[in-house]
């Protein structure tokens, strides 16, 4: 049985903000199925009582003195922006027309 359907891949692409094409959906559906079936092997390990590891370094809450240090100028920070205005990043509209009006 397939681990994942074409429709589920389309849903994942939407969640991932990827405007994938129909051809890509066909390709990815097969490939993701192979990958997911293979990685599902982790389920064979008896690990019910095992704590999870998210990180190999047991460090928590790294603090530093609250001292002002040199940082990027607005011009430097905006130097790679696709669009900028008044020292700010300019973005496409975030609300739909009827909400905005």
């Amino acid at each position: 049985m397939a681990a994942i359907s074409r429709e589920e891949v389309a849903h994942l692409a939407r969640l991932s903000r990827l405007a994938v094409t129909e051809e890509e959906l066909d390709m990815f559906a097969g490939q993701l199925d192979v990958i997911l079936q293979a990685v599902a092997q982790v389920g064979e390990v008896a690990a019910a009582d095992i704590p999870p590891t998210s990180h190999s370094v047991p460090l928590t809450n790294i603090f530093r003195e609250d001292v002002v240090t040199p940082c990027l100028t607005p011009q430097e920070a905006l130097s790679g922006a696709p669009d900028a205005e008044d020292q700010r990043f300019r973005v496409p509209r975030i609300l739909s027309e009827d909400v905005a009006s």
Partner: protein
Amino acid sequence: MSDLTRMTASEIASLVAGGETSAVEVTRAHLDRIAAVDDRVHAFLHVDTDGALAAARSVDERRAAGEELGPLAGVPVAVKDVLATRGVPTTVGSKILEGWRPPYDATIVQRLREAGTVMLGKTNMDEFAMGSSTEYSAYGPTHNPWDLSRIPGGSGGGSAAALAAYEAPLAIGSDTGGSIRQPGAVTGTVGAKPTYGGTSRYGLVAFSSSLDTPGPCARTVLDAALLHQVIGGHDPRDSTSIPQPVPDVVAAAKLGATGDLTGVRLGIVSEFVGEGAEPGVMAAFRESVDALAKLGAEIVEVSCPTFAYALPAYYLIAPSECSSNLARFDGVRFGLRVGDDGNRSLEEVMSLTRETGFGPEVKRRIMIGTYALSSGYYDAYYGQAQKVRTLITRDFTAAFERVDALISPTTPSVAFPMGARTADPYQMYLADLYTIPANLYGGPGISVPCGISEGLPVGLQVMAPTMADDRMYRVAAALESAIGTFTPPAL
């Protein structure tokens, strides 16, 4: 003067320090070599000729003024395009960052500059360091200098190929699942993954933050150690950086080079010497084990049963982290923006930008990660993978109670032909079978050339406990002293 491009970094450094050659002369020799061979190898995405010569001139001026210079002053280095370099294009092998010139340097790049090394340029890589062949670079593949029809490994194929093609004596890589060690193995060069947290990730474009580890690449173990010492150590700008000094890896490499491993216990990972590896790889590995035993090392076999599940665990954990990390590529603050016609919404523009800017492997991993993290699947996939990670760590801990270091082949096969695995993404993943456990555990690993199979180099991997990076350098240097280095056919 004999060919400067054939020398080791330590040889070059001592010639520069002694005034027998200049940093400018050394840099020109390497730039000339790049100009002569890189159209065939394609190790570099960007060659910073002016920046390199300016840095070299500065080293020569400082030396002339009697300044005390570091152990690698005047030595050229190639930097994987995953590290931010101020004013110098940084693409991560992706179209989504084409043309981006970072406004700051990664900590490692800053340390390279302060040490007086000369950055030649940025090396090719699989897009966002996701791949094992450098074929997933959006700017075309890198070719293995041993056989131009074969892959140089990945993701850091550019850095490894630059070394093997004598375009640079030193290079920087980053290793999330083997991206330094596997390219090292298949190009006959040395690649070291430091302890996670032993080298700064500040300015390293994030792929999988709990695994990403920048590190040194070189043609000899001592050179790798010298570079490790320069780039390593605590960085307050990386909150996962370990606040301890780097173990003395240079002294360890020198000790190893004396060829004495008396009293050192090495464990062969049983799970990695079975049927999975090519016979030629196993033959080279077995000969090297004999050589290590002759140097006085005690060799035992150690079983690490959970290592068999490292690959599937990794291909859940790394994509999960990547799906989160790569959310920052939204067409707002840097890089590409596609479809902003004044009518489309932010979300539509974001989706078109990411669709256009990311290649297929990056998209696959983002979607796998999104899947593994979604409610209903989280426990069975990501949660379970994190538990397996705990068990892998326990296998390492138990093994290091019995032995000082673990050894295995670095890769199951020699460099495969280009195009052989691109149609089957999971086959590509298998190239990292032996390197991934060390990433999940966080300990250091090094690949050192150990022989030839079918005319192509084979690597031996040494893995050590966390913050015992010196141990792996000692063993690797001892092996190198016994069997020598390997030179590819002339290009």
